[in-house]
């Protein structure tokens, strides 16, 4: 069965729009950021839609107030703006407040990593996993395709608390053509075998799958795991999945060594008593203003398919040696 790829945001908003017909407690807020499906939402449910304007601090505050009054809120903006412009509003009025009052606010950030390719570093987002991970009671979802993004509606509606959904701005290939992954598990094993497993999130799952395919063609097996729930995955199941491996490679479209997926996996391995060696593939260096395709930009900062494959190749030798 083939599923035509579509933007993650439209896949998710399509489902939110459908849910709004049944559930009058769903409210949609945006900081003047749209999509074709959003036009339907604001057309059909003007009484449960608010555009706060280009004002992310108020987006969070208004969403928190709505949630206190019992609404399930989806707040929508560009990823770096909805996480960084208003970080303290998220901390105080979502993370702290949710410890005392039951509130359900789902932050939808569009523009993971380099997905706003030509817009430069203001619109690209390499720090959000680090920052949102620092808030211990905020859930983080980082889907790799629109099927996963659409399936996130269920936990968003069913579970209270603040959540951050990190969506890619580009249309990515479908990796779950028949059914969405098991969200309660938080990760999905795409390939098993070998002595090394690639643990990737978001766009980098596609890079990991391509790298693994290339190595497989040379007769060298690699495991590949899509970790789409960064905080609340089934730890026992992930431990079980990773236990056979001698080496783990993390792949993220965010700064390396600054508290993102790599730090999370170091912590996880240490707590689980797993002693596999680690390689972290993430954005090297700091900010850049060069233009290029996404894959060119990725190669420049060490997370492109070629750069990643070279690193993985060396790591395989080191682990084998």
């Amino acid at each position, binding site marked *: 069965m083939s599923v035509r790829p579509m933007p993650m945001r439209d896949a998710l908003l399509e489902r939110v729009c459908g849910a709004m017909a049944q559930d009058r407690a769903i409210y949609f807020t945006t900081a003047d950021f749209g999509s074709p499906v959003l036009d339907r939402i604001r057309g059909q449910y003007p009484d449960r839609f608010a555009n706060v304007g280009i004002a992310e*601090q108020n987006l969070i505050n208004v969403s928190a107030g709505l949630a*206190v*009054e019992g609404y399930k809120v989806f707040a929508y903006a560009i990823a770096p703006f909805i996480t960084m412009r208003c970080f*303290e509003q998220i901390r105080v*009025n979502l993370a*702290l407040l949710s410890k005392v009052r039951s509130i359900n606010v789902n932050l939808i950030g569009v523009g993971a990593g380099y997905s706003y390719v030509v817009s430069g570093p203001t619109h690209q987002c390499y720090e959000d996993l680090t920052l949102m991970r620092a808030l211990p009671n905020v859930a983080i979802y980082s889907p790799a395709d629109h099927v996963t993004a659409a399936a996130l509606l269920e936990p968003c509606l069913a579970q209270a608390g603040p959540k951050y959904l990190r969506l890619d701005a580009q249309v990515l290939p479908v990796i779950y053509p028949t059914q969405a992954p098991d969200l309660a598990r938080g990760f999905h094993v795409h390939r098993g075998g070998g002595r090394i497993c690639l643990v990737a999130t978001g766009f980098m799952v596609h890079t990991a799958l391509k790298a693994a395919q290339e190595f497989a063609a040379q007769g060298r097996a690699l495991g590949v795991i899509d970790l789409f729930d960064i905080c609340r995955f089934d730890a026992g199941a992930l431990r079980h999945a990773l236990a056979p491996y001698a080496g783990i490679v993390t792949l993220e479209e965010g700064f390396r060594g600054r508290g993102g997926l790599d730090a999370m996996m170091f912590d996880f391995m240490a707590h689980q008593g797993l002693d596999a060696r680690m390689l972290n593939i993430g954005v090297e260096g700091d900010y850049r203003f060069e233009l290029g395709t996404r894959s060119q930009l990725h190669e420049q900062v060490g997370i492109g398919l070629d750069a990643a494959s070279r690193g993985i190749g060396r790591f395989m030798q080191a682990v084998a040696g």
Partner: protein
Amino acid sequence: MLISENEAILEGEQEWLRRKARWVWRETLRVHRHAPETRLASSLSAVEIFVALYYGGVLRFDAAQPRWQERDRCIISKGHGSICMYPILADLGFFAAAELSRVCQAGGILGGIPDPVIPGYETVNGSLGHGLGVATGMALGLKGRGSERSVFVVTGDGELHEGANWEAIMFASHHGLEHLNLVVDNNGVSMLGHTEDIVSHDGLLDRLRAFGWDCGQVDGHDVVALRQALVQMKAKGQGKPKALVAHTRKGNGVPGLEDEDLCHVMNPKAELIDRLLQESA
């Protein structure tokens, strides 16, 4: 005794309100004497505001059910400067009066800055400039449900330097949130001095009017006038959010503290507090 929502109140009720304000002023001094970590000066400028709101028949609430759906919401954005709410909430039965003897102590619920673990507090306060935006969301939600309940927000004037307030101020008037009521405790002093010397709020009423708000002002230490202004503000519709600027003195009634540049961080000596308590008894 609580005063009804009627606009006019009797002479005896006015006197009762004044006595209540005096009592809260004294109890606030007492709390601060036991817990000098609390912010006294910011809390003394707001005494009459909270007395008028809670005893003057302005707010609808049920101390036995602090989250009663049909309550008016009161968001205390200047959390640090609301220690005077501790004796008020205890007096009204939101929590046991015994809590007042363990402010800032392990096991207590009343901290140096109030949090919503305290019955009667709605939101997380302390970090300034958050309350108005959250209150705006609450007012929008209540409007969406067709509720007639009001949302009050008490801010200081210093915290209006936070830009997020002005995002909310624009949003509230655009959406005609006529059940949203802002009360500014305009004591004119933030941490490092008078706001007019820091970044001036000169013409605050005109500024708020220019943003589409219905505005008034009042002597913030005249509890009867305040109560009257708050009742009238609450009753007004006209499709606009409303603001009342209460002109107050930071550290009101405490010699050496009142309106001093650095009164925000000043703690009067225990002997002075004892003397003031004795004199006002």
